[in-house]
């Protein structure tokens, strides 16, 4: 089943009077349970695509379908609700709420979603990412790799259909990067988690089921 599908997706920004075409007609789809990597040179529209697929932003034209539903023109409240329930995000850095402990960070989306067993679930998720012993630490007391693992645990809080990660290892050393990517593989294989991940690293991209190559706002067919 197609969990993400886009048709002729375009997004342009106005830089002063110059139109920057960040995406210039992207047609693609991601299947339920797939682990997809997005690669391509800097500025080719990878993040822009992920933001649109994650309903953080709206396209200039074209359509986005999530699980077959047209979500292109939803209002901001409905989009927020979709993000809360169906989408998990991992950004490159500073994803966490500094004021909240590790456990509270993971609990928070569940509280927002009015789940009741958020304490047990957040402990479970933190065990899953190997941080069961850091529940009450603050993000600032963790290493970059550990912070990204907390972010992954948080992104899974509401059992999202889709996990979107924009250069999740971009800020990490090789060892931590491998840990993160192995965690993704585990989530994908054991929990059939759909993952779309942007990366610059061919090794990391190579660990995905499929790679989408972006160039100048479109997908390259190789």
């Amino acid at each position, binding site marked *: 089943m197609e969990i993400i599908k886009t048709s002729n997706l375009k997004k342009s920004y106005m830089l002063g009077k110059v139109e920057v075409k960040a995406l210039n007609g992207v047609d693609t789809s991601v299947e339920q349970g797939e682990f997809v990597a997005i690669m391509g040179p800097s500025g080719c529209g990878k*993040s822009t695509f992920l*933001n649109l697929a*994650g309903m*953080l*932003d709206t396209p200039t034209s074209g359509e986005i379908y999530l699980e077959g539903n047209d979500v292109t023109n939803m209002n*901001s*409240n409905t989009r*927020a*609700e*979709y*993000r*809360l*329930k169906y989408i998990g*995000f991992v*950004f490159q850095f*500073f*994803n*966490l*709420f*500094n*004021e*909240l402990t590790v456990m*509270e960070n993971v609990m*928070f*989306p569940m*509280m*927002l*979603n*009015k789940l009741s067993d958020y304490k047990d679930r957040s402990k479970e998720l933190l065990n899953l990412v190997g941080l069961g012993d850091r529940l009450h630490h603050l993000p600032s007391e963790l290493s970059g790799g550990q912070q990204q693992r907390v972010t992954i645990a*948080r992104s899974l809080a509401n059992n999202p259909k889709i996990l979107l990660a924009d250069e999740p290892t971009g800020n990490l050393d090789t060892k931590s990067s491998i840990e993160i990517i192995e965690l993704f593989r585990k989530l994908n294989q054991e929990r059939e988690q759909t993952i779309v991940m942007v990366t610059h690293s061919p090794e990391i991209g190579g660990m995905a089921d499929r790679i989408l190559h972006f160039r100048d706002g479109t997908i390259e067919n190789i």
Partner: protein
Amino acid sequence: MSSIFFYARKDAKKNWKTFFFVIIAIAISTANIIILNGFMDGITDGFLEKNMDTSSGHVNIYPDEQDKYIEGLGIKEKKLEGMDGVVAYSPRITAGGTLHYKEKFKTIKILALDPSKENEVTILLSKVDSGETLATNDRDGMLMSYRLADDLKVKPGDEATIVFENGKPRVFKIRGILHTGLAMDTNTIIINFEDAAEQLNLFNKASIILVKLQDETLSGQYKNKISEELGIQKIKEWKQEIESVLSSFKTFREISNFMNAIGLFTGAVSVGIVLYINILHKRRQIGILKAIGMKDLQVLFVYILQAVFLGAIGILIGDALGYAGTKYLEAHPFPDPTLGSLGPRFHLFLIYDASLVTMLIVILAAAFPALMASRTNIIKAIWGN
């Protein structure tokens, strides 16, 4: 809602150092309002009570419009005696005249009353500084207001001549010096009712009758009742008597309100600025909040709620300070030559009023930064530019 509360609380707790000053500003503003308003109430109440106790009944009966005196005093007194709820009454005669003492003379206001009746209605005759007060049937005795006595350098026991407005002179002996804290302290002489009636050839007449009721709150009802029974048109309740006094406090009130407004404004501005700066610092976090699914309105609530926390803490401290300050000044008032002392008076509604007003202003001040936070553009916030 609980998640919004949760985040607002955590965020505020982590930033308590920044918020500390805001809380202090709110506290001072609240305390300021309580103490200042307490003062206003204290001074006004004090003044009113004094006026009421010494120079007015609960209702006062005046002559009809075209008359100088109330006619048929005896019958009216009988009728007042027969009325349920009327505790006491005191007829008075007021007249002009001059006072002669050792080559000097002064224009005076003559106030004549029957001490036995007056003492049932007011405490005027107890306001004697030195000497003794005027006794019932004390023919030829007078009380002199203290400023007049100072002017003329007289003391109890001295004699002076009063020339009434019709030109008839008579020598009176000074029994005591009167000090009320009211306007009458300047040039008033108090003598017995009978003496004045005799000198002015008044029979069965009075200038005013003060009436004391069992229940002062029923003054409106009794005003009509007395008007009917006695066939009199002009009757004033004590509240009306005091209205002129109240209006002279208006400017005073306005000044104090202005000072309150400045205090509130300072509090509000500091709340607004600190929240604004905090929100600017938290742009990325607000972006993440929205990215993981918090709605605009919920973000707005987070920051309004945060302002409410700060407000609540500041107001509680302010209430305590205001209470303590008002109570202290109530116990240690500033001495004042006319009123005796100037001090605030504590009422619980002072705290309610100040708390409510301050909270409203705090929420108002938070509205703009909170709105700004709720409108944060996710993409720009997360990719920081």
